[in-house]
């Protein structure tokens, strides 16, 4: 009979020396940078074009997202159906997404099919035409989806907390309304496309099992495009709301409230940022966090409560987010502040701190496994103008942060008066 009462010997993950595997870096003829991780056992690859075409570049709400979405809905020689059919015939996926600074187009495919897919990717990046009818369908479907989302307390809460943190005109704080969709015009999209895609700035990220002539293929199709123009991300100033606390009743029959407790927080360049990641984990960053232990596992007020730092390039925010029973929303908020106070007043004990560190290092070890994860790390560094030193500094901060530093950071940032507080029922 084995000894079931003692944990088997473990190797502390905090003692691991994690490495970020290198990625190849080169440039196309036009100077557009390419980052590539050529690895993996499966015959698959991912190729992502990151354009500086996020919503911070738009002059009219929702134009950046609409342009990005409708890129593949018609070119000079192909309609939306035949473009989709082409990718789908080869079992490939061409996804796109629009964020605040960047907008992406991502191809996932079996490596053997890359050569028949790239010509159509090129066509989309150079000859998209944004047909009137496609835009009308898009507008109608977006409005319908919005009407459903407006009945969800979490959706409303996410929009409002961003608006309070950054202001309604800030790229991180603005959101799309029915009127914004209604006002979209194909001319807006065509102009945005010309200014930010056809003549834009792109960075390419690739990972997976790449064909031997991958760099040549990329250069043949994209090396002559005008996608290495200077792009200056506009500096936007946050205009936080003055009223810190709000309670909103969106649904008279609602049985839960969406709670958001959030404060503005400096970006990645701030010296506290990396260390605060450890404090955040302790507070609400994982299943064993203080908030989960108290509010879910002790009180049963919620299915889950989480805290996180928003992934923004510029200013950012520290957010605590949960959906809790309607009758226990206020109690949930009180308990959240109690947990902040505990972190401000009492040193975290060494055992708990080691646990968080080990957990974070173990998670990082798993997250650095495989080409898609490795390129995701590199992408995050590069789009934030950072390099691998930042990665290694982050690992060192996890390993070395002390209980006293944690307490200092809690006193500096976990101050209830600095938080916005929002409940949407």
């Amino acid at each position, binding site marked *: 009979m084995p000894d079931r009462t003692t944990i088997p010997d*473990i190797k502390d993950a905090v003692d691991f020396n994690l490495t970020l595997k290198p990625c190849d870096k080169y440039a196309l003829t036009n100077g557009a940078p390419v980052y590539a991780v050529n690895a993996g056992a499966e015959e698959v690859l991912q190729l992502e074009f990151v354009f500086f075409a996020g919503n911070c570049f738009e002059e009219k709400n929702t134009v950046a997202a609409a342009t990005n979405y409708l890129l593949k809905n018609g070119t000079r020689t192909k309609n939306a159906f035949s473009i989709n059919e082409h990718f789908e015939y080869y079992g490939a996926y061409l996804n796109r997404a629009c964020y605040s600074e960047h907008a992406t187009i991502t191809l996932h495919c079996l490596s053997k099919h890359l050569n028949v897919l790239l010509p159509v990717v090129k066509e989309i990046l150079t000859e998209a035409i944004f047909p009137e009818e496609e835009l009308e369908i898009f507008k109608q479907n977006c409005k*319908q989806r919005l009407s459903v989302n407006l009945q969800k307390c979490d959706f409303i809460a996410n929009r409002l907390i961003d608006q309070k943190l950054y202001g309604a005109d800030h790229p991180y704080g603005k959101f799309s309304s029915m009127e914004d969709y209604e006002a979209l015009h194909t001319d807006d999209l065509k102009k945005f496309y010309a200014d930010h895609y056809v003549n834009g700035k792109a960075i390419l990220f690739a990972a997976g099992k790449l064909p031997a002539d991958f760099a040549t293929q990329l250069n043949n199709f994209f090396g002559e495009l005008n996608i290495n123009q200077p792009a200056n991300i506009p500096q936007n100033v946050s205009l936080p709301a003055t009223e810190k606390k709000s309670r909103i009743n969106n649904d008279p029959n609602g049985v839960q409230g969406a709670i958001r407790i959030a404060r503005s927080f400096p970006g990645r360049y701030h010296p506290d940022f990396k260390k605060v990641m450890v404090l955040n984990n302790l507070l609400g960053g994982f299943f064993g966090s203080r908030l989960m232990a108290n509010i879910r596992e002790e009180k049963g007020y919620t299915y889950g409560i989480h805290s996180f730092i928003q992934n923004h390039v510029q200013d950012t925010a520290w957010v605590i987010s949960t959906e809790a029973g309607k009758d226990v929303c206020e109690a949930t908020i009180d308990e959240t502040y109690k947990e902040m106070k505990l972190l401000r007043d009492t040193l975290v004990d060494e055992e708990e701190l080691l646990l968080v560190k*080990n957990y974070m290092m173990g998670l990082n070890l798993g997250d650095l496994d495989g080409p898609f994860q490795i390129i995701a790390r590199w992408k995050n560094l590069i789009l934030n103008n950072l390099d691998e030193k930042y990665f290694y500094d982050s690992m060192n901060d996890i390993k070395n942060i002390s209980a006293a530093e944690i307490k200092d950071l809690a006193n500096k940032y976990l101050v209830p008066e600095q938080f916005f507080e929002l409940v949407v029922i």
Partner: protein
Amino acid sequence: MVEFKKFTLGNGLRVIVHEDKSTPMAVLDVMYDVGSRDEDPAQTGFAHLFEHLMFGGSINIPSYDEPLQMAGGENNAYTTNDLTNYYIQLPAENLETAFWLESDRMLSLAFGDKSLAVQRKVVSEEFREHYLNKPYGEVWHKMRELAYTVHPYRWMTIGKELSHIENAKLADVKSFFHKHYTPSNAVMCVAGNITFDQVKELSEKWFGNIPAGEKYERRLPEEPKQTRPHHLEIKAKVPLDALYKCWHIYSRLDKRYYTTDLITDILSGGGSSRLFQSLVKEKKLFSNIECYHFGSVDAGLIAIEGKLVKGIKMEAAEKAILEELDKMKTEEISEAELQKVKNKTESLIAFEDVSLMNRANSLATYELLGDADLMNKELAHYQAVTAAEIRQESRNIFDENNCSTLYYYSEN
């Protein structure tokens, strides 16, 4: 091709080992052959509630999560109508911690009133968050009841109603554990940077002396063949009318499962799929439409659901769906279209197998179905499907007498 070896312990626990030396991690996946289909109709939601209680500490280990986090690991679990799966990923050096934790909770739980009281509340909030407090959240509760008359698939994994969870008693929980959480009712897959010998030794050490328990014999009522259309109309506080239809299909191990799976890809799932192109893009009747099936072990359902464009009549929208299904029944699809959905499947499988966790999970799932090696035969099954079979199965399945339809109207 995913390589693996397997062995069975004396107490009946089946163990699958998948070595992958390219990763620093290990995965330990324990899958129990119990899901919400094994519940008493008066006590639904139990399998899932029980999954929560499995984290409340076991006989020798008061806290499950903390030692695992200390070992740099993370874990989660899910319950379906068919099975309950618990999985851990951690640095391979600390594999034994995973064995220690999982074996102790298979041995016996530390049942406590406090843990039950809290998890009843947590699961009730999960119920509210996902099914009560969301527009259209109740729909599949209604649809399952409409489609099934006797089979326990007629309730959702979360439970038929909140009261079943709120009334759960400790004695019921205990008997559920003893009935289902036995070695012979489970499959374990260990994957990653480990060796077969190491897994064999650790399995014997930690799981070998757990009593075999009584093998649970599943005797579920078989759903009789549906012989007339089922129809329901509901008015709800939602902004848009929505239409739901579902038809009975085959069990997971039936050869026709693969044909059915490809039918869903022909109809939906991509920008060039039939329902999207015809009903969203050309006729503009729906703002979104999907076709999917539930992948359940016993005979399941294939479903089509969509939200109607404002101003479109339910009957007109339904008629357009039926016209598309008629084409499936009368015209053979082209070789190119068939090849398209096969290629999509090939690609999907390749991408899924990139993740170690997915591989471990799939091996355990297939072993529970009968043989882990089914995983490596899947693609060949899909590639063997013919256009004639697609047409034949469309005829068999898309029959109004086999169909349940819900008109979900907006009150606004």
